[in-house]
């Protein structure tokens, strides 16, 4: 490993404006001028809602193969826009919320708000939208706490 690599890694670790995320959708073409293409994905960053249409850094072909569920690193630009810059060793996991009454100290039931994405099963393809044919094979379902929220074909 060269010295340059060490410096680059040190800079990445020192940068505060970085996030770990989990890919929820397959890379889709966001914009093109006919020569260069910009792909984007939806990314779970451990909040209630995912980040939509996060561009994938250019010249990183590996990321274009990133499957749904892959852990990725997001970097924020000066203008405040996030971009997927590479793979990560960490990703958002479960997200559990507990309501608390501050007057009576009584806790409500914990709710699971974990975002996850996976290809829909044959059973799901057969039931969603009124039967086979409505939803294509390989469609990705985005779930919150195990409940289907949206489908990305």
């Amino acid at each position, binding site marked *: 490993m060269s010295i340059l690599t060490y410096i680059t890694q040190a800079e990445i670790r020192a940068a505060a404006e970085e996030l*770990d995320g989990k890919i929820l959708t397959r890379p889709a073409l966001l914009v093109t001028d006919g020569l260069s293409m910009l792909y984007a994905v939806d990314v779970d960053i*451990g909040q209630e809602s995912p980040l939509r249409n996060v561009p994938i850094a250019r010249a990183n072909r590996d990321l274009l*193969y*990133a*499957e749904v*569920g*892959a*852990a990725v690193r997001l970097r924020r630009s000066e203008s405040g826009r996030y971009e997927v810059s590479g*793979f*990560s*060793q*960490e*990703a*958002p*996991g*479960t*997200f*559990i*919320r*507990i*309501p*608390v*009454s*501050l*007057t009576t*100290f009584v*806790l*409500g039931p*914990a709710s699971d708000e974990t975002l996850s994405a996976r290809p829909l099963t044959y059973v799901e393809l057969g039931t969603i939208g009124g039967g086979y044919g409505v939803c294509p094979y390989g469609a990705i379902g985005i779930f919150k706490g195990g409940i289907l929220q949206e489908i990305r074909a």
Partner: protein
Amino acid sequence: MDWRWSPCSIDYQRVTTVWYHPTATPLEMVSNTHSDSVELTEYVNRLSQSSSEAQATLTWHKELDGANQPVPGCIFEIRENGLMLWWGIIEGLSDYQLSSGQRALTITVRSRDASTLWRDTRRVSELYPVGTPLHIITRDIAESLGLTSAEMFIGETSGSTVHSNTQLADLTAWEMLSVLNLPSGTSPVVDAIGRLKFISRDISRRADIVLTKSNYSSVRGSKARPPLTAIRIKWLDPNLSKVSQQDQQLAAETITAGYFQIRQRKRIHFSQDGRQRAENTHLVIRQSANSSFVRVCEETYQQLTQTEGEIVLETSFWVPTLITAGMGAMLSTAFIPDAVAVPPVETIPTGRVIQAVAGLEVLLVMASIGTGMYEIWGTPYDFIHARNTTEAYDDSAPEWTEKIIEIENDFVMDETQAQAFAVRELLYQVREASVFTVSIVDDPRIEKGDIIELEDGERIYVLDYRRDLTSGAEALLEVQGFRA
């Protein structure tokens, strides 16, 4: 609660003495083995003390001139009715005044944890393996501050590290102690006699001290909008999650096979650095080594480990056998004598034909040398850490007031502990916003972190206290805290 003291009655009379220790060490103070006490009581004009600080104004004629004067860094002790009430380290002497016949100065004393060594010096802890009890790490950090067992009041906890190679880095000792013990609901404090101990942050527990109405003289309170509506705990899941990518080409290789080697093994890593894991790997032959005249080898592939596989080209046994036999035949047939025809006529000598056949065999084998282009395809995967989020939120807070505070802590062991941690911190930090001050009959039992209950059922979590120990002052204790 400081168990060395008994409850005080309303007509409690306290006798306060002040001592200066020029050479005593903190350990000698804790173990009460110091022998250098210099009494300053008769020079003390004003004296007040809180849980972490004391201020004394001294006046004298000539007695504290020169070497007799207290110096910063030495120990200053307050005793009440002969028993140690509090001690600290002199931080500074200020307001030095010199007037005719009298000199005065103010001494500021702080508890031992206020020093740079505890609060500012950044450290790196050792590496701890999975399953290391947290109280062991706490003790190690305390020992790195120079504390001995006598100076620690640390119990055993059931908490332990859940990650391999846990290390605390670039934190002060105080921050390390706080981070380590926050998930179990405790905070570090240094008590009145200089021992490191941990106080509970649970505000729903039973009160430590119950006061009757005659014990307190005034209660002042305020209520403020809580500065937060939710606490979000981010913790690293000890269980690794498997994440797969799409099936893709992992490596490519070009191998030449022929008579020259029976078996060729080529190790293939699934990435340049040899660390990429993959499964369902298989061989894709872009160009076979058998694509010339004759099939000369068997092309196989097997995955050896999670990160590498092996392509094996096994040349058929007849290939080297044939070329060896051919070369032998060429040599041996060279000795077959040819017959000479007289007179001269055209002839094909018998030996030349046999030699040509042997030569053809050799050429055939050599022409069968093939170069194959191979690709290894598979599904790369890796094990990653999931950073889980557990949030406790105020169920009655309107959405527009939302203010979430995030706490990141990797000493959380599981979801159950994370939920208890989040709820406890939410209650603590929300209630902390409403400050209460209660003036009570002095009670040396009270410490930071205690819960005192008033007669009307109101409960106060003690954040700090202050007492005026000036000669002739009322024996009152002003307790600051919040409604628990």
